[in-house]
């Protein structure tokens, strides 16, 4: 099963840790709001996704499925 993640827009406060750690998976807009830019996390980026999750001060990144 492939990994799917999402950013909860109500929790994201724009710390941009996810974008710094995994720019392949996230983008942030001018206001700091982060969004996931892939439908599924490629296997080789799963570790980066977990790193982003573990560094979000707002607990805003969720694993939808894996």
């Amino acid at each position: 099963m492939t990994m799917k993640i999402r950013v909860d827009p109500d929790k994201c406060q724009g710390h941009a840790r996810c974008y710094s750690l995994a720019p392949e998976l996230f983008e942030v807009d001018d206001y700091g709001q982060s969004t996931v830019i892939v439908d599924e996390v490629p296997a080789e980026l799963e570790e980066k996704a977990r790193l982003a999750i573990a560094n979000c001060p707002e607990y805003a990144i969720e694993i939808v499925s894996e």
Partner: protein
Amino acid sequence: MAHTAPVTDWATDFDVMDPGYLADPFSIWDRLRESCPIPHTDRRKSSWMPLRYEDVTAIAHDVEHFSSLKVAVIPGDEDEDPNENFDGPNLEYGLPPISADPPLHTWTRRLLLPWFSHTRVDSYVPLTRELCCSLLDGFADKGHADAAADYAQQIPVRVIARILGVPTDLADTFTGWVRDVLEFADDQERRQAGAEGLLYYFVDQLAQRKEHPGDDLLSELLHTEVDGKPVDDGIALGMAALVLIAGVDTTWSAIGSSLWHLASHEEDRKRLVAEPELMPTAVEELLRAYAPVTMAREVTQDIEYAGCPMRAGDKVLMNFPAANRDPEAFEDPDVVQLDRAHNRHVAFGSGIHRCAGSNLARMELQVALEEWLARIPEFTLAEGEDITWAGGQVRGPRILPVVFP
């Protein structure tokens, strides 16, 4: 009780300006976290100080019970009648968005955020790097320097001046005003003089921008419409003052503390020089371990929080630096691990008031450390010379003598 009396009981009578606390708050937090994780004091004003990660972040998210209208750690005139003792420019809205609750907080913050977006901050890298190099040119061949005053202090103020569109050659004046407001806040005269200097300066600058707009942040504030109306003069003034105040002391303190750490921890210094790829995690770890900023909240209604009988009007000192040292949230929190992979630190706060300049601060800290280590890879604290720490709202070294070959 005079607020200068020595502290005998940190749980019921803490003092964030106590000289021992300024030099080493960490051991005091560690003891209190075990015995009384939300100490109280009646010095200056009835204030609570959460020290655990869980409490600090929970209170930061509860904007209904904990307002940001009065964010100063050291209470000042704004804690009484805001304009009673102050005959300077009108600041009836304080310094939005930091000292605002929604809805004022929401739209003023949206005006500022694009100036500190990732993309925009990337465009400030070359000038920051150039600035660091020219400062290093001034002392790199002398064998000694004050890493705080000669270097750290000089960087963020000039970058923020460029963003605001005000002259960088006034950097020392800006720094003086900001220090008067934040660091010498117990001295009401000095605090007021700093505030007046800064506010009158911006009143004049804003008036000039109305006539001759530029491409800077001040001009944009004046030429943006919100709900079809221009931004109120008092709000624009508060926002301008905030950007300067928040952009100076904070990052300067983070750079200074990081250099203090590297000067006093040889292994970490050598490792960072040998493994420059560690810089991104090292920056986060140094921010965690030496987070400079504490912001206050005001209790909006009587509430019992974690067994503490908080009264409406009490201050809550949001000790983000102590939260970052909580063993419940971080493994070996008092040990700096330059490659710490899991680091949910809250040096920039948590919730809707997350530091709007966090991208800028991170960039400045990283560039300042990279350029220093490239030029001065070996350095230590100067033996026998005193280090001075500022604290209260913002903790960091103000005099930091170092020597190098």
